[in-house]
């Protein structure tokens, strides 16, 4: 019997109170009749089989009934229902979208086997903490360390895929055969290349390339393709989820390392990934690699001085600012949710007061408090679900907008998706929201004794509710101030960045890449001929004012760091001798609008037989020949070659607007030994046009010219230089637009909240205000009285919001460039904006209060 009573707890409380005793009695009478073996057990089983489905059915009956009542009552107040649904949709939509992004970028396991055990190994020096390494160091790391079950290296480069229609540039990763084993990934078709026997001239396709270039042909395995003019065999196709080392990689080919590749430890271009042995922690691997690097430093002091190995879990590869950016959005979305809940709770409290009479009647008719609370919570949950559905649909539609915030450097697809995980989160969110704004008001609305509500007076309850609503308004205002402060600071940062001089002029410049396969262009003279022939004809095109070839475009190629030393200067560490190296043809500075400060441009006469020359940037001069010394004719050493400065140009922000860049050194493409520094071969063609011409209109002409010079050369990455500068701030402007939109919505919700509260206050105080009017109070005085209430609440909210906003801004300090978290302009503007909104929200109810006719007000009581 005790068990049966316990079982009855499954029923709703009201039902149990009504029929519990009867149920027990019937059960007892039934049980008494059961005889025979195992009678108690049979009774228990029968009881469970009877109670369980019926209890569920009773709950469903009540739910159905409550929903019917809820729909009926909401239909009577469609404005209220619509507002509630919209506000929920906003909160849930913002949070679902941001959660899917955060989950995708920061949390979800990467698509490799046991991804927690995969680490990246970077070479670090006091100046650069995250560098690629040389083949020799990579080999020694593998043999000297004891922490890894496998180690693989990759290097990426564009390659020309030809033989199928137009030549096309593909992003290729050259990988050691261990790569697929270390990551634990299998191909979906065919196989991957193996170490033994060595698969040479073979290629593994990404799912994307297989679909776009091979029409998803299942018979692609074994097919011959030409890569940089060399025949390759297709070995396999990887799954769509596999993107390593970056999201943009389209194919993998074996990385062939010959003995000559292991000679120079300063030639660093390999990205190393490794799998931790079972039971080896990342901390132990770090100690292990410290020992290995110390040993290599003793062995090769010339190249490995101060060189350490950084072991990073692959999940941690997300850059600090990408992470912060996503976290900032999470914070903003959370703010919106808090705001939405506060607003809805306030709405429901008000509604509870209006419905106090109805609830009291139902209570008097015998509905228990549990029953009333349940009815009200069903109503709020119903609204939450409706709003949640709208919100999730909006989030799904908005996801592509967020794809710009997915960092490209991750082995991930370019866009987050809505999946079961995200939908599960959204469901929890909806339920939490519904309860957060529904439960409190439901408890409060159902609590007054029937007598209280049926009678005229329930001022104490109303006063209590009013206090809670006032508190909620303060919370709303504070949350919107936080958002305003955060987005205000980001706007200031953005404006500062956009005002920065990048060091070059990007408008009316077209950038085109001709990838120049290294194997075919190892001979310097051959490359120079290619440049000369292409440039000569391009410069002759109508509308072209200048054209040049360069190693890499600013803000696109950010690294390219070499060490340049000046004879007679004390040996400095790597950071103090680092320069950004570019090879450039004549007219490069003119084309990019980089000002020539002194001396001359690089010239066609700077050949291998002429003296070695260089053009350097102003900061290079400041570093090595400070105090107004004449830099022209002075020499420095770079890549074992002495070079004389013939010109000085302005500095360029090659690393982008948000980072400082190393001084730049420009060399003539002809003054380099065959197959030396081959990675710096100029590949980017830049063309400046006259103001009247759209640079993109030159593309067909350039395509003809390049094809005539080398028919196998595709044109890759054709874009105006403006796009590169624009991309530089694109994640920021996306984030800014999002955050700004959220902040404005927050402001709107808060304003509506204040409006709603004051409207309610005015209607509650109608009699009092009427008496005041009758006693001779001026209309202006009444307006002031009502507005003061709204403004006081807004002021309290603004003050606390500014404090919280300052705390939040300190947390996102890394996103702020040149703007302090306590930036007074932003804080004051955010506060003012909120107060103005509050004033606007208070104005209508205040005017209404002033128009109250004392006679009508007094009569209505």
């Amino acid at each position, binding site marked *: 019997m005790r068990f049966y009573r316990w079982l009855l707890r499954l029923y709703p409380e009201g039902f149990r109170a009504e029929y519990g005793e*009867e149920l027990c*009695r*019937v*059960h007892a009478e039934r049980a008494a009749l059961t005889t025979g073996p195992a009678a108690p057990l049979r009774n228990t089983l029968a009881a469970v*089989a009877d109670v369980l489905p*019926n*209890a569920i*059915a*009773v709950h469903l*009956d009540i739910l159905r009934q409550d929903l019917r009542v809820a729909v009926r009552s909401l239909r009577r107040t469609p404005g209220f229902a619509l507002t509630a649904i919209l506000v929920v949709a906003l909160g849930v939509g913002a949070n679902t979208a941001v959660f899917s992004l955060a989950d995708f970028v920061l949390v979800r396991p990467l698509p490799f086997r046991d991804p927690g055990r995969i680490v990246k190994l970077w070479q670090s020096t006091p100046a650069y903490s995250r560098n690629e390494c040389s083949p020799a160091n990579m080999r020694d790391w593998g043999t000297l360390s004891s922490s890894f079950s496998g180690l693989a290296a990759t290097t990426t480069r564009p390659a020309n895929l030809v033989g199928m229609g137009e030549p096309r540039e593909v992003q290729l990763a050259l990988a050691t055969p261990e790569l697929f084993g270390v990551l634990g990934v299998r191909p979906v078709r065919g196989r991957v290349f193996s170490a033994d026997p060595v698969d040479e001239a073979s290629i593994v396709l990404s799912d994307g390339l297989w679909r776009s270039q091979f029409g998803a042909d299942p018979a692609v395995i074994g097919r011959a393709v030409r890569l940089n003019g060399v025949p390759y065999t297709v070995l396999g196709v990887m799954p769509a989820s596999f993107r390593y080392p970056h999201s943009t990689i389209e194919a993998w080919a074996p990385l062939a390392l010959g003995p000559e590749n292991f000679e120079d430890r300063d030639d660093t271009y390999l990205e190393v990934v490794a799998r931790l042995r079972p039971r080896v922690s990342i901390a132990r691997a770090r100690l292990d690699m410290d020992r290995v690097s110390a040993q290599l430093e003793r062995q090769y002091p010339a190249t490995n001085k101060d060189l350490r190995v950084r072991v990073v879990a692959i999940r941690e590869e997300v850059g600090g600012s990408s992470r912060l950016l996503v976290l900032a959005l999470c914070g903003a979305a959370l703010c919106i949710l808090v705001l939405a809940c506060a607003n809805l709770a306030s709405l429901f409290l008000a509604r509870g007061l209006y419905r106090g009479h109805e609830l009291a009647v139902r209570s008097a008719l015998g509905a228990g408090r549990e029953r009333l609370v349940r009815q009200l919570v069903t109503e709020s949950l119903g609204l939450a679900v409706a709003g949640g559905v709208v919100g999730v649909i909006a989030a799904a539609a908005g996801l592509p907008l967020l794809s710009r915030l997915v960092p490209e450097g991750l082995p991930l697809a370019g866009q987050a998706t809505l999946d079961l995980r995200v939908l599960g989160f959204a469901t929890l969110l909806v339920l939490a929201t519904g309860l957060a704004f529904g439960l409190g008001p439901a408890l409060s609305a159902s609590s007054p004794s029937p007598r209280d509500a049926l009678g005229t007076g329930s001022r104490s309850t109303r006063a209590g509710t009013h206090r809670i609503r006032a508190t909620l308004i303060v919370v709303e205002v504070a949350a919107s101030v936080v958002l305003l402060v955060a987005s205000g600071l980001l706007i200031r940062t953005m404006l500062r960045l956009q005002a920065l001089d990048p060091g070059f002029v990007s408008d009316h410049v077209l950038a085109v890449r001709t990838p120049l396969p290294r194997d075919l262009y190892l001979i310097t003279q051959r490359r120079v001929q290619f440049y000369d022939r292409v440039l000569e004809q391009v410069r002759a095109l109508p509308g072209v004012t200048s054209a040049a070839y360069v190693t890499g475009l600013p803000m696109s190629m950010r690294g390219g760091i070499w060490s340049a030393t000046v004879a007679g200067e004390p040996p400095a560490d790597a950071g103090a001798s680092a320069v950004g190296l570019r090879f450039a043809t004549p007219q490069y500075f003119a084309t990019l609008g980089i000002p020539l400060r002194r001396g001359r441009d690089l010239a066609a006469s700077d050949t291998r037989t002429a003296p070695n020359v260089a053009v350097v940037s102003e900061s290079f001069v400041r570093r090595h020949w400070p105090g107004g010394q004449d830099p022209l004719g002075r020499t420095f050493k770079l890549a074992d070659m002495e070079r004389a400065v013939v010109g000085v140009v302005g500095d360029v922000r090659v690393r982008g607007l948000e980072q400082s860049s190393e001084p730049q050194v420009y060399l003539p493409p002809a003054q380099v030994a065959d197959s030396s520094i081959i990675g710096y071969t100029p590949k980017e063609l830049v063309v400046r046009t006259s103001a009247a011409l759209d640079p993109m209109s030159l593309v067909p002409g350039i395509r003809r010219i390049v094809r005539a010079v080398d028919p196998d050369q595709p044109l890759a990455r054709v874009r105006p230089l403006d796009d590169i500068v624009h991309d530089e701030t694109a994640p920021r402007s996306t984030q800014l637009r999002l955050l700004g939109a959220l902040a404005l919505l927050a402001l709107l919700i808060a304003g509506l909240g204040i409006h709603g509260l004051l409207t309610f206050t005015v209607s509650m105080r109608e009699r009092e205000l009427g008496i005041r009017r009758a006693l001779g109070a001026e209309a202006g005085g009444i307006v002031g009285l009502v507005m003061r209430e709204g403004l006081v609440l807004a002021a309290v909210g603004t003050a606390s919001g500014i404090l919280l906003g300052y705390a939040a801004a300190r947390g996102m300090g890394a996103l702020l460039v040149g703007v302090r978290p306590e930036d007074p302009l932003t804080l004051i503007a955010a506060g003012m904006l909120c107060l103005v909104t509050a004033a606007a929200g208070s104005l209508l109810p205040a005017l209404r209060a002033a128009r109250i006719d004392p006679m009508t007000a007094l009569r209505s009581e």
Partner: protein
Amino acid sequence: MATDRELPESLLPLPPATFHILLALADVERHGYAILQDVEQRTGGELKLGAGTLYRSIARMVEQGLIAEVTRRRSLGDDERRRYYRLTPFGTAVARAEMRRLAQLVRLARARGLTPGPEPA
């Protein structure tokens, strides 16, 4: 109750348990256990309602206005603590409507030449 205004037909077809409870209360007021016993006897033990099913049905039927709790006891012989139920006029109307529906079904089947056939052994 709002359901009082509804047409008896709107509740058809009745769930078997509901119909049997209406039948059990057709002639006399009964308490829960008595309803169970009546249903069981009348169907020759074929329909054995559980306590849970019974009271869920009762709760819903009270809500729908088909039956009502008897507030004044009929005779002193009855157990004072028990809760008795009786048919309401609306309940009677619904039971009649259900009978008409069933009879109509049987008529339709007969018109098609279908006969019940011999009772299964």
